[in-house]
């Protein structure tokens, strides 16, 4: 009886997984299909692969710099968020001051802020400042959500370290700053790394800010995607190739930080 239930449950879970994974598999396959196979009336599952789409779109059509832009933006936004956010998280974790929780809530609201609402005035401001179409515009924009993610996640990781560790370090002769830099940061390193990867993913995947704030030179990979879709004659093989390049590294990263993902996705509310 229990065994039958188990088998049924397993079947259900596998069916759901197929439903979740097949679409991605399809775009992966499409990136290796000839135009004829891609546009066939009856879906083609077995075919002779072509490897032309990747060099065509990334080298001949010039999408390679977009990958580079995405990396620059994601890395720098992550770095900025960590450098500014981790010390703030430490303060939230270790110091008592009036209004602490209200300030913390303010950080939360920044994480939740709807991009469409932020990007409208940001576009106007950045145009005035003359920094649109430069990576710095997107880096700053992505810091709006990454900074508070860092503060929220890292506060949790610092809270996980017993206060006695700080006190031991102070007895061992450290100042407070020394304790933070030499003891807490190394101890929280796994959490810091997971946070960094999550920031990188969020920035890499982001579309709207980048789409509004950069148009030409500074375009990131996600911004490049809509440009490939035309009302007629979309080259789906190439679109698929871009989609695969835009997603595969992220999936690899995801598996690296899987253990900390729940915490990251819930602002530390669920430890996972």
């Amino acid at each position, binding site marked *: 009886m229990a065994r039958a239930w188990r088998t049924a449950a397993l079947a259900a879970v596998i069916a759901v997984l197929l439903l979740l994974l097949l679409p991605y598999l399809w775009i992966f396959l499409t990136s290796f299909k000839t135009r004829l196979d891609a546009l066939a009336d009856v879906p083609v599952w077995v075919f002779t692969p072509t490897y032309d789409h990747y060099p065509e779109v990334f080298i001949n059509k010039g999408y390679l710099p977009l990958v580079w832009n995405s990396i620059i933006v994601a890395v720098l936004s992550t770095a900025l968020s960590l450098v500014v956010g981790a010390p703030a998280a430490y303060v939230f974790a270790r110091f*008592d001051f009036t209004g602490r929780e209200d300030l913390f809530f303010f950080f939360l609201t920044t994480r939740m802020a709807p991009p469409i609402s932020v990007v409208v005035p940001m576009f106007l401001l950045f145009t005035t400042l003359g920094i649109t179409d430069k990576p710095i515009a997107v880096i700053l924009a992505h810091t709006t959500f990454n900074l508070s993610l860092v503060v929220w996640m890292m506060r949790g990781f610092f809270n996980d370290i*017993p206060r*006695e*560790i700080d*006190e*031991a*370090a*102070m*007895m*061992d*002769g*450290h*100042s*407070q700053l*020394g304790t933070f830099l030499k*003891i807490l940061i*190394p*101890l929280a*390193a796994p959490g810091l790394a997971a946070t960094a990867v999550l920031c990188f993913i969020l920035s890499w995947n982001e579309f709207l800010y980048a789409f509004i704030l950069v148009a030409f030179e500074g375009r990131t990979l996600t911004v490049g995607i809509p440009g490939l879709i035309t009302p007629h004659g979309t080259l789906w093989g190439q679109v698929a190739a871009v989609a695969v390049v835009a997603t595969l590294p992220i999936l690899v990263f995801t598996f690296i930080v899987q253990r900390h993902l729940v915490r990251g996705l819930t602002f530390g509310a669920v430890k996972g």
Partner: protein
Amino acid sequence: MSIAFNQISKVFADGTVALDRLDLEFDRGEFIVLLGPSGSGKTTACRILAGLEQATSGVISIDGRDVTRLPPRERNMSMVFQNYALYGHKTVFDNIAYPLRVRKIGRNSIGTKVHEVARLLQIESYLDRRPSQLSGGQAQRVAVARALVWNPDICLMDEPLSNLDALLRLQTRTELKRLHSDLGHTFLFVTHDQEEAMTLGTKIAVLNEGQLVQFDIPRRIYHEPSSRFVAEFIGRPAMNIIDGEINNGMFQAAGGFQIDVENQPDGPVAMGIRPEQILVSGTQTKQTIEFELDVIELVEPDTLLFVKKGGVNMVVRVMRDMGQIERGATVHLALPHAHRHFFELADGRRRW
């Protein structure tokens, strides 16, 4: 050469008074135990001495130098924490070496010193391990090693034994005692366990509700408790204390017996006597009182007799086998004059 708390008070943000004008002074080389129930302020006192907590008022001085406002790193003290607080990302060696590194001791002498203290604490064989690979007892030794390696002025210990299991706690206790006799360091040890305090301390400071109740050598704490609180807190089973009144040299227990007393003025009083100092007599004499046996507990090699007479309950510790004795039997007890303690009924102070 002394360490002193002068009128130290600590009030927490929520209004809790943890310490109330604490005065305490002791010499180098002592093994001082701060003893008290939870909430007595003993841990706060220790943390204020360490510099981890700021006193609300009062002065901490070391050899006459005011250190009240100094951060921990400038006080030359080390500390062993209840949960050991080892650095999880460093090896045992690096944990022990860490205070030396922070204090910029030369590289060569670091190795020598770490190995020396490791040998002393018998942890040489796992210097390469990480804290997560250590048992509780081993982690405890590493924490002690880290606290002793750089010869601090004082080594503070905040309930360092309470996370160990019973047998290990006894062993470690003995070792700490040996360590102190061998090294002659100054220790300040916080505990709520009176047995630990009695065995380890060269002097014990008993705290209650943020105030120092008694500060003395263990023998005097036991034999001449300064108050009813100390008398009850020290010794297990606890001292029997009977409320009553003295009239014309006779102690009248409330709801119980009468007994003659020596050299005590009249008035309301609480009389105490330790369970192990009550004598059980085979026959009735002029000095004995008749009690009814209520419960017998065999705590080999001793026997505990819980007896009652009227409204008075007492426990007697007999250090021999009582043979066949039944509940409800009559026992004759003598309460020797020399071992009686008298406390004011009103405020619990000792009547000298």
